[in-house]
């Protein structure tokens, strides 16, 4: 028996971007050939890994992501300027403000951080890494998105629900790692994403967020997500 999870699911996922990722890894390269990117953008400044509030990951995980990205990119013969360089400039500029978190001030700090970064370092472009929530498709309690799959934990089906084997499908919140390489003017040249883990569980016909302490427990999933986000290379 198939039943579509309805309003409650949609309410949870409506604000999440769908993992709109082209099917073929070569589509990760935007208006540029991989060979050209490798040749002309071999020296990149890596920005500090950013996690969206809805996919907040522990610092240790962000560091793991950062080091995995650096490891793979260097293996692919890219030279990366460490995120600490950018962060040092940013912190220096933030220190000049009484209220650095005001929107206008943040924008000014970001703009001048990048300008100063480019002035100090002859890099060809930027490599940014973002942890973000996406809407993953799931069916028969199995979610599939951005190169990964995961079983959706469920409870509350009851005895009859279990033996009749109800089949749910819909979209569920999941985390992913997006890696973008852009040129010095901000034009994206590469954009690909690797899925990490689902952030919800099913309780009967409803979806509910997983407790924060149950998330980001698998370093293996994180590593796999980074590998997939860079798989097109």
């Amino acid at each position, binding site marked *: 028996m198939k039943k579509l999870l309805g309003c409650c699911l949609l309410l949870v996922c409506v604000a999440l971007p769908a993992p709109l990722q082209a099917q073929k890894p070569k589509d990760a390269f935007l208006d540029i050939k991989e060979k050209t990117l490798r040749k002309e953008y071999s020296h990149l400044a890596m920005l500090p890994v950013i996690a969206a509030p809805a996919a907040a990951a522990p610092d240790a995980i962000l560091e793991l992501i950062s080091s995995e990205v650096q490891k793979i990119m260097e293996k692919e013969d890219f030279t990366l300027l460490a995120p600490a360089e950018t962060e040092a400039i940013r912190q220096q500029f933030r220190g*000049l403000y009484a209220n650095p978190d005001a929107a206008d001030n943040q924008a*000014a*700090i970001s703009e001048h951080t990048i*300008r100063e970064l*480019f002035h*100090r370092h002859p890099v060809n472009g930027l490599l940014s890494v973002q942890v973000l929530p996406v809407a993953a498709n799931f069916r028969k309690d199995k979610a599939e998105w951005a190169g990964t799959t995961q079983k959706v934990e469920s409870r509350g089906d009851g005895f009859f629900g279990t033996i009749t084997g109800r089949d749910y499908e819909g979209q569920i919140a999941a985390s992913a790692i997006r890696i973008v390489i852009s040129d*010095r003017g901000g*034009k994206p040249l590469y954009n690909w994403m690797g899925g990490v883990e689902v952030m919800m569980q099913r309780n009967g016909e409803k979806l509910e967020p997983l407790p924060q302490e149950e998330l980001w427990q698998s370093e293996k999933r994180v590593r796999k997500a980074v590998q997939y986000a860079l798989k097109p290379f």
Partner: protein
Amino acid sequence: MRNTASRFLLTTLFLLAFTGIAEAKKYQPINEIPGQVPETEEEEGVWQVGLAHQQKVRGSAELVNNAELERYLEGIVARLMGDMVKAIGLEVDVLVFRDPTVNAWAYPNGTVAVQTGLLAAMENEAQLAAILGHEVSHYLNRHAFIQIKSKQTQSAIGKGLGALATIAVAAKTGTVATGLLDSGRIWTDLVTSGYSRKLETAADEQGLQFMIDAGYPPEEALPAFEAMRIDEDDEINIDKIWSSHPDIDSRKKNLARRIKKAKVEGNSAGLDGAAYLRAVRLAALANSQLQVQNRDFDGAIARLEKYTGTLQEDATGFYLLGEAYRKQDPEGDYERRMGAYERALAVDDGMAAAWRELGMAYRQQGMAAQATDALARYLALKPGAADAPIIGWYRDNPGAASAAQ
């Protein structure tokens, strides 16, 4: 046998011609039946869809929203239409869309829409008049409605237009799907890109006549149409009205024939390029900013170099040119960039942004003393700017970055 076939062919041709005449007669031009259009509820519905879109965009950031600019453009339309404006009782109305695509269209109610890309691409008022005359002809001859009626059952664009007609029907019953109207491209995508070759040719020819009657030199129609030519690899312009007509050459040929035949002498209105540029200044500058945003640096620089070459008294033009140079090559081409900022400041030394960028360029070039002076000028003009603390630090530490390298 051959005779029978010929007779059949002739009869068919006659019937087709008769049908064409009947169709044309069915939809008389608005100026010939003033006050009677829209004639049916269905046509009224199409008008309503157009009006709904206009209502949606008016006052929004999609438009340049400058009364003086609109008045200037409305003046050209009124000049092209002459006595027809009064006869129809039309309130001439022009909307200016912020869009670098070289494009224009007419809504069924006569409102003309032009995009900043068009205004920036024209070299003088006469050229613009050629395009506006074309759009006025579409309006007068009710081409939007005719096109929708004739395309409802045809293929891809027909389906789109059919959808529009459905909306139109919904509009007349007050149940219009506003979600569909929210698609700002409804007119450009569904209506203006769908005009048949026949309607376009008719509008070309009548538009040319309007131009002649208004005192504009008709020869200017040729470069105007040439500016509408779209390179196949121009992504920004793809799928837009003029790009859907790959036969600019044959249209130009047709116009050239008509111009020769008209033997117009003495028409000289609208040839002053500088006056035109002053009149459309805001749109031209906004367009260059859009080009830079879209990373069409070469396009922006070409336009701005031309603009500043003509309007040497415009500080904003020089500043934007400097910005286009900087964004195209952030760590290079300092000479051209600094030259443009200096020209801007020579015209208006109160332009804070130009002082800032000049100071930043001096600093990047290792010219510490000049950097400090220029950045101090910026801070004096804009002490409360969001980036004032950072610029203040640069002013006080003009060689800091060099030390950090």
